[in-house]
């Protein structure tokens, strides 16, 4: 049942991402939240989705140039993390980082699959022309909607597979060979890199200075607060 939900949400996200609407619902921060909601752990979804959003902030479709399939990657990672978290008392940073490492390559696989659908869709174009030549313009126009099936199917198949791999492997690793490793630090390292990736996606002349200024000023504020709290305690 859970995997069915992951499949449906991943499939719909793949459609929303390109074929219909594009209202940010397939962006990692939204999709991971929705998957968390569907699987009964909104907080877990948000925890995973926020850094993934920044990590893949630059994943945009410019003309014919395709980015990685951030929605497929997110569905697999968030789905896997929330399901693995059921066995481990919630989505901890340890669970999140291992799910990421296991399922993130699917984003790249999704990009390859999308290229393939673009070639297959040439057949749809031919079909539309054929319908038109038979005197059925309304039918020719509607051929467009047939293109929604392939992206749905690809993500609906691959996302649950990635989620299942993570959901099966993560508890074994966390309770087994990796039990002594400080994995949580790995998740925070990844989240830091995600901020950097997000900043890099903001290509503006002053973006570099502003990014570092915010980082340094924010960090100074955080350290000050910690110090004062620490002193009082």
């Amino acid at each position, binding site marked *: 049942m859970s995997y069915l939900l992951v499949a449906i949400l991943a499939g719909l996200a793949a459609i929303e991402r390109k074929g219909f609407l594009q209202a940010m619902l397939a962006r990692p921060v939204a999709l991971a939240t929705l998957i968390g909601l569907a699987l009964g752990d909104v907080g877990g979804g948000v925890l995973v989705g926020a850094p993934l959003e920044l990590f893949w902030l630059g994943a945009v479709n410019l003309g014919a140039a395709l980015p990685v399939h951030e929605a497929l990657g997110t569905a697999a990672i968030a789905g896997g993390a929330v399901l693995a978290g059921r066995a481990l008392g919630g989505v901890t940073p340890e669970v999140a980082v291992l799910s990421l490492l296991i399922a993130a390559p699917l984003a790249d696989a999704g990009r390859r699959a999308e290229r393939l659908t673009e070639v297959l*869709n040439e057949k749809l174009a031919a079909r539309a022309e054929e319908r038109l030549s038979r005197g059925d313009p309304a039918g020719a126009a509607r051929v467009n909607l047939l293109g929604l099936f392939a992206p749905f199917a690809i993500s609906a198949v691959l996302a649950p597979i990635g989620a299942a791999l993570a959901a099966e492997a993560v508890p074994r690793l966390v309770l087994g060979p990796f039990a002594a490793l400080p994995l949580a630090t*790995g998740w925070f390292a990844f989240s830091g890199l995600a901020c950097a990736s997000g900043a890099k996606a903001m290509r503006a002349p002053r973006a570099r200075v502003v990014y570092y200024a915010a*980082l340094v000023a924010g960090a100074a504020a955080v350290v000050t607060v910690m110090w004062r709290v620490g002193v009082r305690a």
Partner: protein
Amino acid sequence: MTVPTRTLLRVFWRSLFLQAAWNRRGMQNLGFAYAIDPALAALYPEPERRREALARHLGFFNCHPYTAAAILGGTIYHEERVARGEEPAGNPVLYKSTLQGPLAAIGDGFFWTALRPFFGALAALGALAVGWPAVVITLAIYNLVHLALRYGLFRDGYRKGDGIVADVARLALPVFADRLRVAGAFVCGLTAALLLWRGALQAGFLSGAVALAAAAFGYLALLGGARLLPAAYVIVVAGVGAALFAARWHGSS
């Protein structure tokens, strides 16, 4: 010959499916033909003329999915004049081919690489700070802007035809894009600082410090051309390694 308002609304709804069958040869050609077909059906009651009209819109088309709405509206403006015999039948296609590149550039430069990433970064920061309500609010605001502009461009394209270019110029989107990107970079920097706080509370001060260091040095590495996914694996291993090293050093001292 004009297109009824109801039909225009139907065309706009269908324009949301512009990239459903994106293909290498025609790119958004099927999506454009699908969107404009109800308008063509209204303008050309004679089957042969409607067939010809749809055939010309099955030719190559590619634009940004939002700004394409302006071209769709403007193309209907020209098709109305073709249907009335005031313009040659080649005008709608010429209009499309002239505007698709520049409006794609506007859409990519404003929506895809400025407005959406800005709201994405804001949603991420909000999600980490206060949780899911921030995601809902941020997305609601983004889509208010998105749908208002998308529908406005469609309506103005239909009313003004070639005049849409002046309208889009007045919006000064490249100027706003620049500001949004700077603001977005600011949000990313703040998020890194928030991670210092979060990491320190959840997993020890070292985790927070590692997050901050990854944000500072990861940026340099990515600007230097490091590939994103491999960089993620490297930084996770480095972070865990740093924590191991610190624990050992701390334990032996």
